């Protein structure tokens, strides 16, 4: 049956003047339906009052947004609104609710004191780094030699972050921290370690975070909290996917990638590395893989160079280049890669940034290979140093790298 086309009507009858009062719905006498103007009034009251009540949270969200016109415009509106909210004491509502819900914003903080420009050359072992909040139990390495003193202070060149090979009786506690792509790795690594036994894993990976904006989420502080709470034997970190943005230093905007940006970012990386390794705890830092966007890939190369340089400057830190596990044959972004049996796998999510479960598992296999160097002596055997023609059974085919120490492809760092 064809649809009947209704004749055009207008609703500009002189007998029905616009009114905010509303009318009764003929189908439901207790229901009043109203004119569009009434909706505008209700909506305006709603949003103005809500804006005043939620002003502290809105202002903080705007302040921690990426630098740019949008942030500037939002703050131009929200700063006076926030002042008015404070004047009327309406901001106490948000504060009270946050306190009642136990929200103390543990992640966010003012800019760290180290973020000062101009900065002197970065010390290799920052003595001003945070003091250790906890120490793992002293353990012996597989050779029976005692591990270096692991109670305080950064590792020095020559000390080895030795760890006993994990067993069911002596489980290795692995903390995995990172952003959302770090979560993809964390999931794959936790599954891999669960399957092997002898590990206790703890993930703390948070979406939309990184090291560029400690005013939004302060990973330096959060890592210290995680170390204290979980007391890991080994830490795996993967940050950077959200860090291709500028940040404020001393109230001035610093665009991504400038020399000062790199210096400040490097200081933040250094402080986290120092915090983790201060108690003779090895840190395995995983860089960012190539991205679908060329611009983002270039940005990831920038942060990876910083990670690598800092890893080389911090004994006890291993840097793993994920390019080896996740790039295509020519070193470019690859959505599909062959697994050990030659079957293709989709390793990257549709956004061209994140990893699929297969991609996470693939990177986790590389991380696990790197982890094993911490308790197993380096060996040139094929199982430790796979080649493209003989991929490891539990991991992806990888390429050897001239920078890879200890026979682990893609691995850089110092182990003393």
């Amino acid at each position: 049956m064809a649809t009947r086309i209704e004749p055009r009507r207008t609703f500009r009858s002189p007998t029905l003047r616009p009114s905010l009062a509303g009318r009764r719905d003929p189908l439901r006498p207790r229901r009043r339906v109203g004119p569009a103007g009434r909706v505008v009034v209700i909506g305006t009251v709603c949003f103005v009052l809500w804006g005043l009540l939620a002003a502290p949270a809105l202002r903080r969200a705007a302040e921690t947004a990426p630098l740019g016109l949008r942030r500037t415009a939002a703050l131009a509106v929200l700063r006076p609104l926030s002042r008015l909210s404070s004047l009327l004491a309406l901001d106490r509502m948000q504060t009270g609710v946050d306190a009642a819900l136990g929200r103390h914003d543990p992640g966010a903080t003012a800019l760290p004191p180290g973020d000062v420009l101009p900065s002197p050359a970065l010390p290799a072992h920052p003595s001003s780094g945070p003091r250790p909040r906890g120490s793992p139990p002293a353990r012996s390495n597989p050779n029976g030699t005692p591990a270096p003193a692991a109670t305080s202070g950064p590792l020095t060149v020559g000390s080895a972050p030795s760890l006993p090979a994990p067993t069911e009786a002596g489980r290795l506690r692995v903390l995995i921290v990172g952003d959302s792509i770090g979560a993809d790795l964390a999931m794959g690594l936790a599954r891999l370690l669960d399957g092997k036994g002898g590990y206790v894993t703890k993930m703390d990976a948070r979406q939309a975070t990184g090291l560029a904006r400690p005013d939004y989420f302060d990973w330096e502080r959060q890592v210290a909290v995680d170390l204290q709470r979980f007391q890991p034997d080994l830490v795996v970190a993967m940050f950077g996917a959200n860090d291709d943005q500028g940040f404020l230093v001393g109230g001035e905007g610093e665009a991504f990638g400038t020399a000062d940006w790199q210096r400040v970012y490097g200081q933040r990386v250094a402080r986290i590395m120092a915090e983790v390794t201060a108690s003779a705890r090895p840190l395995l830092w995983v860089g960012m893989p190539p991205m679908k966007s060329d611009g983002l890939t270039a940005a990831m190369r920038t942060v990876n160079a910083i990670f690598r340089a800092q890893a080389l400057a911090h004994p006890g830190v291993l840097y793993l280049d994920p390019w080896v596990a996740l790039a295509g044959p020519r070193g470019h972004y690859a959505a599909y890669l062959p697994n050990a049996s030659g079957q293709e796998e989709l390793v990257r999510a549709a956004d061209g940034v994140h990893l699929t479960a297969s991609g996470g598992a693939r990177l986790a296999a590389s991380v696990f290979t790197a982890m094993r160097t911490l308790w197993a002596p380096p060996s040139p055997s094929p199982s430790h140093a796979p080649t493209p023609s003989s991929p490891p059974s539990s991991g992806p085919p990888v390429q050897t790298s001239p920078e890879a120490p200890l026979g682990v492809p893609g691995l850089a760092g110092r182990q003393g």
Partner: protein
Amino acid sequence: MLFPTIDFAIFFALVFVAHWLLNPGSKQWKLFMIAASYVFYGWWDWRFVFLLAGVTVASQAGAELIHHTRHEPRRRMLLAITLTVILGVLGWFKYYGFLALNVSNALHVFGAHSPLPLLQVALPIGISFFTFMAISYVVDVYRGRLEPAGWLDFAVHLSFFPHLVAGPIVRGGELLPQIRAPRDPRRIDYSRAAYLIFGGLFKKVVISSFIATAIVDPVFGTPGQHTALEILFAIYGYAIQIYADFSGYTDIAIGVALLLGFEFPQNFDAPYTARSLQDFWRRWHMTLSRWLRDYLYIPLGGSRGSEWQTYRNVMITMLLGGLWHGAAWTFVAWGGIHGGGLAVGRWRRQRRVAAGLPAQADRPVDRVLQRVATFHLVCLGWVFFRADSLGTAFEMLGRLVSAFGPAPAVTPLVVFVIALMVAVQHLPKELPARVQDGFSQLRPAAQGVALAATLFAITSLGPQGVAPFIYFRF
């Protein structure tokens, strides 16, 4: 543009005012609404606006040609061409990667190389929804149930932003007459709209986010670290999360459309009160189930053939319905569970009727047992729907019956929220209407204050930043 964002609030405030000033139904209004909807869609990726426009043009051209052709074989051929174009778009963007990967790996087993290059095709948001709407429009024109709309009318119909990215799947016969006729600016059911919008926001921002973070994501992410009880509650939790997420979205969509004077069809009706899978599909994503019924199950033959043909048609419909949600074997398994469950349910009903019994036992205890059984069967399907692989799904199910131990992730709050969200579906349907009646009696200022307090509670209880809706991926 996500509904629960400041961006959308500003966008909608501007659109609302312009919409009523432009006299809905006029040519200027149609042009404005197309532009506004395209801005809404292009907010994610402006390039896909051309895709939406292309599907609009292809569908409308096909419908016009079909309508003006008398020769039946030619009409059928035009229908086939038009559907091929629309389904080709859907297939390319949604299924090419899945197809190429599986062909490549199947041929690899025999040592052959696949002729299909492996490409990662970006998935345009909402493509499954607007292509299904386009298909129903063209088929309805072919069947003579609908006259082709004007070009502008159809462009508004297909792109109308409240339903654009995640439904409800509105048919031409429902929306086109509303687009043609002016809307009455004096009779906006703002109370119902506010109830739907703010209730939808609460479900999405508070309930769905909490359950996902508290139990679903950790357990589905690393099932090997969790015990049977945690896995059980993660499955229950996902049932609640996806309901809160998707029904929350469609409630907001329906509410937003109401404020613009448009009535959308209902999409959810207390689905976890269903007493059978058949009943569930009358209550869950209702606009999809009736689409599958009218444009897939019935054209396949429906229940007109033999019993086995009917079971086959049910199974094909549900398997394709599963694949509609995503190009992965987990979705095929999900469709298979529902198809198998529907077929078994039909077989049981027919056996009872043949034995002179009612199709379904109806004592109070039977009703409870039927609801519990249906809920758990639906939950079994959700395991495959949510898991990132069949392996993960089977690991979850395996640990459900083997990994006994303490369950620290099953907190009292998690249990309370899950129980609450199941319980509210059993409340009388008149209750929300009474709440809306009471709200409608208030003065405008009081209504604004009440909504501000509700919004403040939602934004305070919810996380900072809202994850995209689950159904945006489909």
